[in-house]
């Protein structure tokens, strides 16, 4: 069952990449709207259909409620599907006659290339989105004309809530190991890991069955190379390379940590959820993970749970937004865009924060003192100040996640070295962006 599902997904993706692209894009380029944008909504009754996944949908459901109270003439029908199924069926659904008006975009993928969603630049201008969001947040949804280079070009989705990856730590274990202040540089982080090891603790919890060691590698790499340079690579911009001093240090450090016993021996056979479980049970002083697990970790560790942006003088984080796009087939694109603009309203921001996302409007985030959420909001603030948000390396190409999973596993198993790792990743990137 499992294998056939995976296979099915692969076949679908492969077929879609080649087969459905040409027909669909022709259709869409004719439908591209132009002319001035109608801001707001009229008194006319409008029904919009929105599709999402349960994890981001929880917040959007309450945003919809707030929106409908304010603008009763608009009805928004909500539908969701689990993330794997959603990604598989999204393009077909957008191409069908029952296309939704608003759709969650998990990655740019082939959806933009196939012309299935609208270029929102006109709306961005009308609603001043570039003043609302830091450029690193919006750039993740800008796609150049080739359909695969990100960071420049038209804007294809508007962000709702944000996620970020940083470092969780167990305050009690850290204090016991004599780590008094949170590390602020990579060197200090390594010292802390060494102290933890000396105290008989597992320094860094890690589950790499699905390749999550790539989080640590990216964070070390981008804090050394700088967020801007790192982002160029994830965006697939010409001339970017993975072979940077930062990424090399990252691969070196990870192998060194493995040798010194800083990482769990079974990391390659542990999935993310099991690693979270182990961390909440006190195995591991540090743990690199995203804010999506904040509730699970906060519930179990209570006031012992802490979070910092990855130790670096200039704060960076891996992160992306839950972002919504408008279907090229939507007959009510203006109303849909008005809803997208509502996604950064105080009401929407509060709903996003309640569901565990970092909101666009940070004043809506009111975490309790002493909770891990408080730490995450602080880290998020720092990252924004330094404009340090970088998209996931795993999304750099359609197959990058698989490649990173395989090569980080080889790295931890000592089957490849830093040279081999960096080359394998860059070769994979060149296949799409070269």
């Amino acid at each position, binding site marked *: 069952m499992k294998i056939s599902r995976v296979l099915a997904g692969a076949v679908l993706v492969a077929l879609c990449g080649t087969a459905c692209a040409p027909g669909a894009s022709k259709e869409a380029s004719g439908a591209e709207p132009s002319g001035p944008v109608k801001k707001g909504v009229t008194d006319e009754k409008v029904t919009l259909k929105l599709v999402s996944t349960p994890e981001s949908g929880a917040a959007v459901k309450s945003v919809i409620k707030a929106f409908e109270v304010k603008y009763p003439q608009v009805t928004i029908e909500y539908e969701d599907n689990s993330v794997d199924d959603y990604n598989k069926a999204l393009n077909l659904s957008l191409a069908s006659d029952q296309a939704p008006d608003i759709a969650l975009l998990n990655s740019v993928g082939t959806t933009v290339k196939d012309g299935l969603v609208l270029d929102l630049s006109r709306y961005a201008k009308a609603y001043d989105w570039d003043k609302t969001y830091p450029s690193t947040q919006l750039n993740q949804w800008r796609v150049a004309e080739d359909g695969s280079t990100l960071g420049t070009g038209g804007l294809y989705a508007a962000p709702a809530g944000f996620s970020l990856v940083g470092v969780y730590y167990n305050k009690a274990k850290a204090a016991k190991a004599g780590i008094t202040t949170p590390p602020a540089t990579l060197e200090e982080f390594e010292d802390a890991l060494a102290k933890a090891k000396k105290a008989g603790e597992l320094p860094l919890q890690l589950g790499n069955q699905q390749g999550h060691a790539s989080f640590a590698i990216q964070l070390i790499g981008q804090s050394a190379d700088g967020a801007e340079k790192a982002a160029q690579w994830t965006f697939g911009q010409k001339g970017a390379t993975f072979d940077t001093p930062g990424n090399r240090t990252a691969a070196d450090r990870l192998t060194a940590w493995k040798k010194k016993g800083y990482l769990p021996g079974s990391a390659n056979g542990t999935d993310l959820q099991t690693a979270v*479980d182990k961390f909440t049970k006190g195995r591991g002083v540090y743990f690199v993970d995203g804010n999506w*697990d904040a509730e699970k970790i906060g519930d179990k560790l209570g006031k012992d749970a802490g979070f910092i942006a990855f130790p670096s003088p200039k704060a960076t984080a891996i992160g992306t937004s839950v972002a919504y796009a408008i279907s090229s087939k939507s007959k009510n694109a203006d109303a849909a865009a008005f809803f997208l603009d509502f996604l950064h309203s105080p009401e929407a921001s509060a709903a996003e924060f309640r569901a565990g996302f970092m909101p666009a409007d940070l004043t809506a985030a009111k975490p309790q003192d002493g909770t891990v959420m408080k730490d995450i909001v602080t880290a998020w603030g720092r990252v924004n100040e330094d404009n340090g948000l970088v998209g996931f390396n795993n999304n750099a190409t359609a197959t990058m996640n698989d490649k990173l999973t395989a090569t980080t596993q080889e790295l931890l198993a000592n089957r490849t070295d830093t040279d081999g790792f960096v080359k394998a990743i860059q070769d994979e990137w060149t296949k799409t962006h070269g």
Partner: protein
Amino acid sequence: MTKQLPRLALTVAAAAVLFPFLALFTAALQPQSNLSPGLSWPSDPQWGNFATAWTTAGFGSLLKSSAVIALGVVPIALVLATLAGYGLATMRLKAKGPLFALLMLGLALPYEAIVIPLYYDLDSAGLLNTYWAVILPLVGLFMPFGVFWMRTHFESLPKELLEAAAVDGANSWRTLTRVLLPTAVPALTTLGLLYFMWAWNQFLLALVLIQDPAMRTAPSGLGKFVQQYGKNIPLLSAGTFIVIAPIVLVYLLFQRHFIKGILQGAVK
């Protein structure tokens, strides 16, 4: 000792089958905050998980569509497989060999490869987003196996049976309905049961060809408990029980026939 050995082997085999279910069952009763339930009886069994799973995934409508699809597929596929198997087994046809070989090709074809073309075909036929979009392709996909199965059954019958029917003046329709079909009940039941199970669990076709999530099949409900960065294992386990319960019930009802059908194949 020789008497005990088979018993021991059967016990081990039964345990091997039951063990995963036991693990599933204890996992289904854990509190939802449990991230990696091991094999242990929960101190406070959460029977409510079944109800929560039912409402979260909307199993009411999903089980209904699985039933509509399965009950639509089984009779059509059984009739077609019987007729084709009968023809291939007993009649003299010119292109019988190549025809059969062509059908057998279908067994080797991964159906995932045809999902996208199917989407566009059904779109042009206006059948997308209806139960027919899943029922009709499934009937087609089930044919190779069914025809092979029924042909084998009809060939295993003694030739004398057909000859006697012919001597008594029965035409081929009467031969099929009055002489052959009564012997085919176990084979048909088994085939029907397999078809039912496959159609019930069909996931990919329903996902791609039906847009309305409420019209999809039961297994698609399990997706609600799997998220991008983790899964709700207790609810996933509870949902799994809900999805497999109808199949287990159907199997229990037809158990005797099923075993007869399998054994019949074994003798041949």
